[in-house]
């Protein structure tokens, strides 16, 4: 006969306010199998836990039920307490009378009745709990970092410096991400390239970092400590070992008018190209979409119409017939750092977004976005740092900066604040005024959000010292009139309509997660929010973990982030990964399926449904050694404890420990009491 202790927590007022905790304890006191039932103000406090431990020892309890908060909150706490009191920790369960009861009901009578039901149900379950031992699984002390922007680089460096191997993959031809496109960075106005490039090189040369550029995640299998990741190395057409980055191929390439992604469309590149001079690695890729030779091949021409790059390459590093290749890497932890992209105001929009018809759907040439302005202002940009507008290359004398384009605009599909725009707009206004002294910089804003060290001072400086004109109000329409760009705004502070004949308009468009984030999230089985940003495990207390153990998140793929934030998160993931790698083995709950070989009929239906391939067929031998049958075997290291196998088992021979049929049916039966 089981001797179960029931401990009802008041959680201060949180439970006691709507649930009569004493009544709950009272109701369970005489329930068959219950040895002791008590209530206490704070079960999770030291005295509370002491009370539980004492009760275990005094009544040598066989099981413990804590009627308190969600198991997701404090199960660990109380199981530890039981363990210390000498009771197998898996004999302890939580009855959730807070989240699932006191917090969602008002009527004290109802809530108390329900609390009693919930607690009794768990008591009945615990009667069938069995003492179990935790499972120990090995940890592969290698990490995968997805995304070679500043966040990915930082995470990779921190883990590598911690003495563990890192596989860093980047879908573009070079690492560096958006930061490499920036001119100067707020609030210090130091040159982005100057602080980033050394980090890129360091990552490339680090003995512990293995870099795959022009690569993407194809498949992810396994679980914390034991992932197996398949990486697709996209056909580069250039042999990374042979190439010495001389650049002769680029010089030879006839297709020279392709809009450069790095220059945000303001500059041109060749078909075989290195995205930018400081690229790491300094090895070109061949853009087959725009390559003359491949265009010819797609047209089905008999012989290749070009090949100048190959002829120019003295190292014979170019091969037009390479195909995508796949490499698999075994890692123990994964850091997602895929970063962001900007909201494109055009007519064509992905699900849920609308675009800006009132701003001409981006068809006015002198209306550009923030990244394009960064390239204009960048010394290494298409204009070598001169602010010249795209349409006619003239120096704009009046530039309008528009905040919150896309951001904070639910009607366009984005409700959140992109966080960085207020700052980079101030920076843009400054840079512009520094370069064009007689120019006007006019910024339309709703609020100035400059929370951060030195941030507000910075944005004030743009107004007070550099003379940027800030107008509080959203812009209603932007359209081209002659060689001017008309801007219809409103100054809500002076209460007047403001019409400006601008020479150029810079839109601070919203930050969105990178393309393909949802597919990647699915491969990693982590969840995303409605905008596609990766969900952290807890908004406050677990900001860089995800709901999948062993997968961490850093930078702008989790929410809009500026550089300091992204770097801080990256280092946090570094610490998390190093922490994970500090032990040789992971302890896992024994929530795994076990097969009863006596009753298993070897139909192997379980094998079919197992999402983890944890089940295999095994021969069993009789005492004399001859094979007497086939049965299923569950590999406890691989099994994740979903229990699907048990639900399909014909002979009821496979059983998920911690969720056995007996336990669940007892819970169901317990509810029959609720009349």
């Amino acid at each position, binding site marked *: 006969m089981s001797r179960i202790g029931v401990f009802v927590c008041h959680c201060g007022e949180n439970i006691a306010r709507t649930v009569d905790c004493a009544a709950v304890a009272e109701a369970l006191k005489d329930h068959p199998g219950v040895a002791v039932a008590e209530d206490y103000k704070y079960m999770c406090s030291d005295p509370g836990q002491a009370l539980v431990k004492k009760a275990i020892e005094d009544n040598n309890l066989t099981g413990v039920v804590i009627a308190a908060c969600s198991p997701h909150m404090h199960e660990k706490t109380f199981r530890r307490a039981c363990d210390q009191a000498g009771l197998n920790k898996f004999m302890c369960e939580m009855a959730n009378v807070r989240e699932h009861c006191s917090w969602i009901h008002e009527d004290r009578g109802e809530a108390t009745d329900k609390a009693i039901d919930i607690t009794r149900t768990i008591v009945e379950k615990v009667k069938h709990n069995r003492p179990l031992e935790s499972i120990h699984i090995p940890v592969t002390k290698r990490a995968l970092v997805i995304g070679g922007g500043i966040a990915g680089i930082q995470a990779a460096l921190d883990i590598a410096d911690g003495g563990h191997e890192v596989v860093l993959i980047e879908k573009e031809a070079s690492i560096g991400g958006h930061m490499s496109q920036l001119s100067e960075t707020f609030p210090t106005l130091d040159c982005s390239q100057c602080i980033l490039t050394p980090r890129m090189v360091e990552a490339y040369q680090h003995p512990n970092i293995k870099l795959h550029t022009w690569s993407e995640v194809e498949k992810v299998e396994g679980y914390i400590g034991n992932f197996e990741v398949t990486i697709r190395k996209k056909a580069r057409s250039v042999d990374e070992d042979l190439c010495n980055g001389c650049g002769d191929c680029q010089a030879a390439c006839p297709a020279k008018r392709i809009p450069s992604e790095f220059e945000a469309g303001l500059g041109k590149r060749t078909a075989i190209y290195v995205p930018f001079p400081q690229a790491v690695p300094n090895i070109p890729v061949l853009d087959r979409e725009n390559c003359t030779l491949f265009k010819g091949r797609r047209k089905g021409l008999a012989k290749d119409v070009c090949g100048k790059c190959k002829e120019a390459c003295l190292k014979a590093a170019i091969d037009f017939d390479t195909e995508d290749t796949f490499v698999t890497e075994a890692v123990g932890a994964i850091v997602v750092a895929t970063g962001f992209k900007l909201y494109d105001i055009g*007519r064509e929009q992905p699900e849920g977004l609308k675009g800006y*018809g009132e701003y001409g759907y981006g068809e006015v040439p002198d209306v550009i976005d923030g990244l394009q302005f960064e390239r204009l202002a960048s010394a290494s940009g298409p204009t070598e740092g001169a602010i010249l507008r795209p349409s006619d290359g003239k120096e704009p004398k009046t530039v309008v900066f528009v905040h919150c384009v896309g951001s904070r605009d639910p009607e366009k599909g984005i409700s959140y604040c992109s966080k960085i725009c207020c700052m980079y707009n101030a920076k843009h206004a400054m840079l512009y005024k520094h370069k064009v002294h007689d120019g006007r910089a006019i910024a339309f804003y709703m609020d100035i959000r400059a929370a951060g060290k030195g941030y507000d001072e910075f944005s004030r400086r743009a107004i007070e010292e550099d003379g940027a004109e800030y107008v509080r109000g959203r812009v209603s329409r932007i359209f*081209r009139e*002659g060689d001017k760009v*008309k801007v219809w705004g409103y100054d809500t502070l002076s209460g007047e309509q403001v019409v400006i004949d601008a020479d150029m308009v810079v839109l601070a468009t919203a930050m969105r997660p990178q393309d393909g984030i949802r597919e990647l999230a699915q491969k990693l089985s982590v969840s995303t929010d409605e905008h596609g940003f990766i969900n952290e495990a807890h908004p406050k207390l677990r900001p860089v973990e995800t709901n999948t153990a062993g997968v961490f998140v850093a930078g702008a793929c989790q929410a809009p982030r500026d550089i300091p934030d992204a770097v801080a998160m990256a280092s946090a993931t570094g610490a998390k990964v190093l922490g994970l790698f500090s032990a040789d083995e992971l302890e896992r709950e024994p929530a795994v399926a076990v097969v009863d070989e006596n009753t298993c009929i070897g139909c192997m239906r379980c094998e079919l449904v197992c999402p983890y391939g944890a089940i295999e067929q095994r021969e069993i031998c009789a005492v004399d050694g001859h094979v007497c049958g086939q049965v299923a075997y569950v590999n406890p290291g691989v099994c994740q404890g979903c229990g699907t196998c048990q639900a399909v088992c014909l002979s009821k021979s496979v059983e998920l420990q911690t969720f056995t049929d007996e336990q669940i049916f007892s819970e169901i039966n317990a509810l029959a009491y609720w009349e």
Partner: protein
Amino acid sequence: MTDVAYYPGCSLHGTSREFDESLRAVAAELGIGLAEIADWSCCGASSGHTTDHLLGVALPARNLALAEAQGFDTVLAPCAACYNRLSAARLAIATEDGLAERIPDVLGRPFANSVEVHNAVELLRDASATIEQKVAVAVAPNPLKGVKLAAYYGCLLVRPFEVCGYDDPEQPTSMDDVIEACGADAVDWDMKVECCGGAFSVSRTASVLRLGRAIIENARSHSAEAIIVACPLCHSNLDLRQKAMARRGEEPLPILFVTEMVGLALGLAPADLGMSRHFVDTAPFMTRLVKQAAERVVAEKLAKEEAAAKAAARAEKQKVSA
């Protein structure tokens, strides 16, 4: 093709007769049957819903109910204002709590809210393929070929999007498509969807003059030769009031209904399209267009002949050299 229920609305029986006349003429040409809703009543225009929301829904609803009772599933409301009120009522009844139940009582007749509402531009856009063909095979030279026209949508054809929704509310293209189908050039200008002052034509003329002027000036600065509209309000504001807007010595800009334009392209006579009813005299404009067209035809003819002659000459040479 089966008939569509035709809801002309008050203006098309009054101040904008030409819209009605040209529409009927064009529909006939395109083989679209129009059946005027028997005993239709006014939609209430802006006065209706400005004064009382329910009234603003009930007045148009009566006409939808009539069309329903007379066995139609679509109503054509060429007047942008009527179109907007009819569709708005349809939407309100479909979405607002309890309205669907309440309306039959208010109307004193059954109503299932089952008919769709279309406007003239929608109708013509959908028929633009046919228009193109007919223009191509027309005997008379198309007077509109290469003429620069500004499509003016105003408010009621495109806003609110939930109500209209057949075209982009900020950068609409449907009327431009019809213009192109007529062989003319749709100019890309900026006032397509700005308001002309609508119902204030009589009660607050000053505003209408200010707003109308901005529209006409912008159209002119984009070298439009005429403005195309599909709304009686816009038309009377820009046509009737243009004299008052104009500065001394300014060439007036003809304001044509989209149906009139299509009619011209199809080779119908301006008079049959009611173009004599305009306040901005369309006669000079038309003579110019016809002249241009005639000259074009001649020029084309000459070019052909020259080409033929050259070819002959070449052939001759070869003979000789051979």
